[in-house]
């Protein structure tokens, strides 16, 4: 008998022995909040997001319009000599970078290797959704977010979130993400961190040690 058949058989036997002994299956009751109190994209929701990101020691920037992102990126990345971006990023956002900054575009067809990415200072992406309650930004590999490796190896990640992408609660975020569960997702809540030494938190380990979040609108 192969392992699959045997294990599934064991599981069925384990359950048969007790089924009937127990009351009928208890239904899953979802009395928790499916929707937060704050409206998606509201300034209150954004305030909560900012509060959480501050707590994680992420750098938060708020700008009014997509046009102002360009100048802001110029400031944030002023000292940066190399930047990698996904293919679908809003092109004009990079117009403010200094002329000395090399911009590499990473695509599925022409991916940069891990060693190449290790030579790049920073990455700029958009995001799929942001959850205010937990300070979480989710990337799902859409063209403006790119392959997972590009947001992992460079030491600085600048993530641009539209205000209308900010939802209050985790269930609201999961509902949006559930539309494309097949996409690889990375949930990011602040820069990498560890609490492995005496359970005191240290920010910045293997993932990007610096996280900038730009909230637009």
């Amino acid at each position, binding site marked *: 008998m192969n392992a699959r058949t045997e294990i599934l058989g064991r*599981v069925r036997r384990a359950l048969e022995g007790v089924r009937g002994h127990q009351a009928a299956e208890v239904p899953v009751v979802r009395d928790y909040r499916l929707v937060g109190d704050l409206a998606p994209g509201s300034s209150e929701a954004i305030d909560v997001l900012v509060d959480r990101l501050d707590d994680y020691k992420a750098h938060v920037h708020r700008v009014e319009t997509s046009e102002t992102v360009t100048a802001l990126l110029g400031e944030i990345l002023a000292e940066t000599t190399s930047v990698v971006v996904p293919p679908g990023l809003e092109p004009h956002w990079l117009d403010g970078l200094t002329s000395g900054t090399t911009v590499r575009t990473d695509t599925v067809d022409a991916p940069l290797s*891990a060693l190449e990415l290790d030579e790049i200072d920073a990455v700029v992406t958009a995001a799929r959704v942001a959850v205010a309650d937990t300070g979480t930004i989710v990337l799902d590999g859409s063209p403006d977010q790119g392959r997972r490796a590009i947001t992992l190896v460079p030491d600085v990640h600048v993530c641009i979130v539209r205000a209308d992408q900010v939802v209050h609660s*985790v269930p609201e975020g*999961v509902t949006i993400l559930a539309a494309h*569960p097949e996409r690889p997702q*990375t949930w990011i809540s602040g820069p990498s*961190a560890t609490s492995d030494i005496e*359970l005191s938190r240290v920010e910045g*380990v293997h993932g990007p040690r610096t996280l900038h979040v730009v909230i637009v609108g």
Partner: protein
Amino acid sequence: MSTFLGLPSLRSRGAHSSGGTGVLPEHAPVGSDVPHPDAPLRWGTTFPDAARAALGNTQLRRNLAHATSTIRDKRAAVVGEVPDWEELRDAGAAIKAHVMTNLPDLLAQFEEAFTARGGTVHWARDAAEANRIVADLVKATGETEVVKVKSMVTQEIGLNEALAEEGIAAFETDLAELIVQLADDMPSHILVPAIHRNRSEIREIFLERMEHTPEGMTDAPRELAMAARAHLRRKFLSAKVAISGANFAVAETGTLTVVESEGNGRMCLTLPETLITVMGIEKIVPTFADLEVFMQLLPRSSTGERMNPYTSLWTGVTPGDGPQDVHLVLLDNGRTRALSDDVGRAALTCIRCSACLNVCPVYERVGGHAYGSVYPGPIGAILTPQLTGSTGHSDPNSTLPYASTLCGACYEVCPVKIDIPALLVHLRAKSVEEDRARNRPTAWGAAMKAASFVMADAGRFATAEKGLALGRIVAGRSGRISSLPFPGSLWTEARDLPAPPKETFRRWWERTHPDTSDGERS
């Protein structure tokens, strides 16, 4: 060279001695307090004996008290701000209970979805079979090194040691696991395997066992973390094969999830060409939406954060992004044994947050190694003996269900409401029933039987109370009993017993309330 830690000599089959880093001194200090277990779910002595030894280690107690009190406060703060925390716990418990009763269908559903997306599913009846599968998969790639994400299940099956025997070096990349691996130690906590080490001990381990530690490295956690980053960076960038566990597997979509903090998980899950995930069959959740429950419960219960820094989700293979050769090993290894107990199976709903360890007054005093299993603490005390089964009273695991005062702190914090005290009592009852069935007499059993006879009848009980008057003679004028023969000595070694009273309550009642008889109103 000798250190204050008394680091044990390295196991010859350990990854770092056979692997490429060559960081280890030829004459590593000898003197191990935690020998390498051949069986990661059953090593060492009985719990009382192991606990006694651990209690003598004042440094350990200080480290644990500091770490657990820190995390308890953090957890309480972030749980306190969630208004629907109890509703989330109820939902989490209900989803997991549903999974247990529908496991065959959910496993099949998951397998189909994961396979449809280009992943390969393997099934392993036990640790040896899982290790064999993983070793063969690694060998098929031609690689002799793998990077690993922290994973309880690979600790449970002793994967690193099994791979080492096949000439494959496994490198732990989680900071705490790295500390444990470098020190040739055993994990003592589910979330923070090196919780028993403080910063200066960790510095010592790094200086002795890690190559290229920075000049003048102090014991500041930040500096130690940076040393680990530098140490592992090249490994990550060049690794071709990674091994992980999984926190959740979504049946309807075939999605796997790893919840982590440092980014070592992302490195392992993203950069290599081959990814092998090992997961217990109980980790399934039915729907993608169920993640909205567990991703609220787990981080707050675990690290005391609103959300952990990184969570990765992958569904089979994503063309052009991440590993293109993706495997999952579904492991039984005693889980179906636990499942067959309709009460005990609640232990399988654990999401490995470790909140129960952090609040446990017993764990806080004795640490994780006393449990003799990679699953320590309250959850370990109910999970370990169910996974292994018990071979009788000489089995160290048979002492685990008694490693608790039943204080209930674990149940109060459990995000999926596992009634650990009730399960401990349940497992104690099973052990008594097994003794009865096998006609195995015990001293406790005889004492309990005698006590039952006396306590089931008021007349017999009152007669026994008269015998207590003898205690007044033992106590003498001090009114205290300070020394009793065994087993009473177990009490009087550190505590007095008061002298029994001149008059029991029953006698007093009869004397002062003569007009009432047998409890009826006069």
